[in-house]
């Protein structure tokens, strides 16, 4: 892995982490529950992106599995929250 690519990956990791923190703000402050759950799903997608970048940086391929788990289970909160409407 060339130095330029690894530097780019590290920068990408930092920026993605900053996006996760920013999404957390909406998750905590968002006026309604739907805003918060949407922010959480965004955190799932952003978190998955961060994990696959980390997998490339640190050489731990298992982190891609973490990414799949994070994004695959991100919708569970939305499905659970809206369950009351399907009776």
């Amino acid at each position, binding site marked *: 892995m060339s130095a330029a690519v690894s530097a780019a990956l590290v920068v990408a990791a930092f920026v993605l982490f900053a996006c996760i923190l920013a999404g957390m703000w909406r998750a905590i402050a968002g006026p309604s529950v739907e805003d918060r759950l949407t922010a959480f799903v965004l955190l799932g997608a952003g978190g998955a992106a961060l994990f696959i970048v980390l997998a490339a940086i640190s050489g731990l391929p298992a982190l891609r599995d*973490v990414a799949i788990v994070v994004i695959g289970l991100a919708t*569970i909160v939305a499905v659970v929250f809206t369950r009351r409407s*399907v009776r």
Partner: protein
Amino acid sequence: MTVVAFSDVDVLDILVVLAVAVTAVLAVVIPRRVSATIAFLVFGLLLALLWARVAAPDVAIAEAALGGGVAGALLVDALHRRQPDSPQRSRRRTATVTAVGAVLGAVTVAALVTVLSRLTAEPADLGPLALEAVERSGVSHPITAVLLNFRNLDTLLEIAVVVFAAVGAAALSRDRIRPVSDPGPVRRVIAVVIVPALVLLAGWLLVAGTSEPGGAFQAGAVLGAALIIAHLCGVHAARAEGRRALAIVVTGLVAFIMLGAIGLAATGTWLALDLDWAFAAILAIETLLTVSIGMALAMLFLAAGSRDEGSVTDARARAAAAGGAP
């Protein structure tokens, strides 16, 4: 592939640690339940990130699967129950509690620092011993070797705890859980695309656990979440309740105990695995444990939700009775 120079990513580690601490405090301190719940879920995600940064991918997978999956489902489901956000406390009492907590925390930290600074002996060499013995364990991933071979008694007891929790859930759940009648097009897509993907993911984590990060707990947590999603999206077969589900949960524990007996018969030591059949035994037990754990987690969720259903049913019955007899 060379790894990036460490100095670059240490800053990221410090930021992650700070974020974890801040999120944890927010999750406890925020009075609104919705915000506190979401803060806790974000805390789980950041914790998984922390585990990834210290090169512990097994724990990261487990944290992501449990914190973002089943625990998230349980907490979000609880948001519907109409209870006050937090009880009103007198300000003096809050101040007293905070002061006592701060003092206790400071004392604990001081004690820990003192103990750790006095540690001069060499740390126990169990780690290198275990790594040496992995090739005699039947699997190639050290974590699985420890969990399912060297220290499988601990895993057996953990499974027993899970079974007890499932029995408790079965006892507390009211009536039969009604299947979801009309899920709607969005949920149907989820049931058709995401649920099978999650089941396959659970299978992959289970099989990968023998040589890479993964294993029964991670797979079971993903499977539990998949069963919950499947039930909520109209898959009638995914109702984790009743005797059938409890039987499946207990099977894992029973099989593990039987494995102990087989080990006793074959090698003279309870739960010891012979190298010849260790791999097959571990994979078989892990498969049963995955299904057990998944079913138990789904049972917990459905039992918690069924009490709301029960109360809704009671309320409707009372309203119908009151309306029928004016």
